């Protein structure tokens, strides 16, 4: 199969932030995203029950420049204030039109 390369950005953060963050990701130029319910531990302690809050894992496939602006946005607005982890990978995709 003929594939193209794109960036996959994965953000793990507090679940209450999902509506806001997904709106911002789309505003930054992503054409879609996928979200799921996760739990975890990190600097901010455990987030794995109703009581402590839970996390959301958002993944979005975007062209490199948009990936960079998403990372910059997260670094600026989320990392200093909320339990957040973000990482980026390169992935091979079909149908480049879906993501640009």
């Amino acid at each position, binding site marked *: 199969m003929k594939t193209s390369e794109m960036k996959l950005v994965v953000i793990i953060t*507090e679940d209450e932030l999902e509506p806001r963050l997904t709106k911002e990701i789309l505003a930054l130029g992503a054409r879609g995203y996928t979200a799921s319910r996760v739990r975890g531990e990190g600097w901010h*302690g455990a987030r794995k*029950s*109703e*009581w*402590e*809050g839970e996390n959301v894992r958002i993944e979005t496939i975007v062209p490199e420049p948009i990936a960079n602006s998403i990372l910059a946005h997260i670094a600026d*607005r989320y990392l200093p*204030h*909320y339990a957040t982890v973000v990482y980026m990978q390169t992935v091979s995709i079909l149908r480049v039109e879906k993501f640009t």
Partner: protein
Amino acid sequence: MNATQAMFLSLLSPMVLAFILGVIATRVKSDLKFPEDLYTALTIYLLVAIGLKGGYKLSISHLSDFWRPGLATIALGVIIPIVSYYILRQLGKFNVWNAAAIAAHYGSVSAVTFGEAIAFHDTLKEEALRAAIEAGAVAAGTAADAPAALAVYQAQGLNYEGFMPSLLTIMEVPAILVAIIIARLQSREDSLDAGEGGTMGEVLRELLAGKSTLLLIGFLIVGYVSGKRGWDQVAPWFDTPFRGVLTLFLLEAGLVTGRRLEDLKKVGPFLVVFGILMPIVSAVAGIFAGQLAGMTMAGATVLGVLAASASYIAAPAACRVALPKASPTYYLTASLAITFPFNIIVGLPLYHFIATRVYGL
């Protein structure tokens, strides 16, 4: 009813026993686990049921007596967090953020503890009626809501005011605001207002639109507006099975508490002692405040329970937003693993006993 009997009655209720069973289950490392969403579903049921019943009761009672208990409730909601804060800072050596967050929890209220207080009073009433029937004071087969039965409860001070859920709602909010204000004044750091999420206005909106406040106030109004006709339609779901559902909820609460017990070491002995003594102090304050406000004995007892209870739905959510530097380990462990079980197991009969002394019944 004397103190031992009440203690006995409370301890042997299925609700309290279910809670203890939940704690034991985690101790023996059982694989018993509630589905992730069942806890939320039970919470919604509980808040809706409490709100609806309160609204209905409100709709059939006189509001003229409401303002004094209302004021007493606000006063408790302001004073308890201030006192708690200074105790935690001075004696407990907690930093500003943690002291404020814990104080917010103890000034606010726990709807489950309230629900258990209601269930406890319902059981007291049933016992009183049974005793009266045995003593021949009322006819056998008297219905639980017959006038003769109501007179029995009345004589023993077991009828609480219909507006108690309104007081629950009222006491939920001020403590959290007070604690946040204290934290800001103390830290002289207005950065909070500048940062993401967290201006006072936002916190207030968050609190009022927060799910527990919204469901309680919302269904209080629904219950009030739809009155007896509405209540009759939904009582078979929200009233009759209430104590049974509460039993399931307390089983789950026991599981959560049991898991938290491991954190007791982390929080240190001071917080353990605080988590037991502070509720007693608050309960006594609440009972006297209730008497001053001209409430019935049962009403004052429930007000004492509200004062004694520590929040674990509204306050944690608010503290995450407004006091992000406070550690959840402290406030969750204190309210969930210490004060909640203490109130449920020892507190309810104790406060009832204190109230009978204060009211001389």
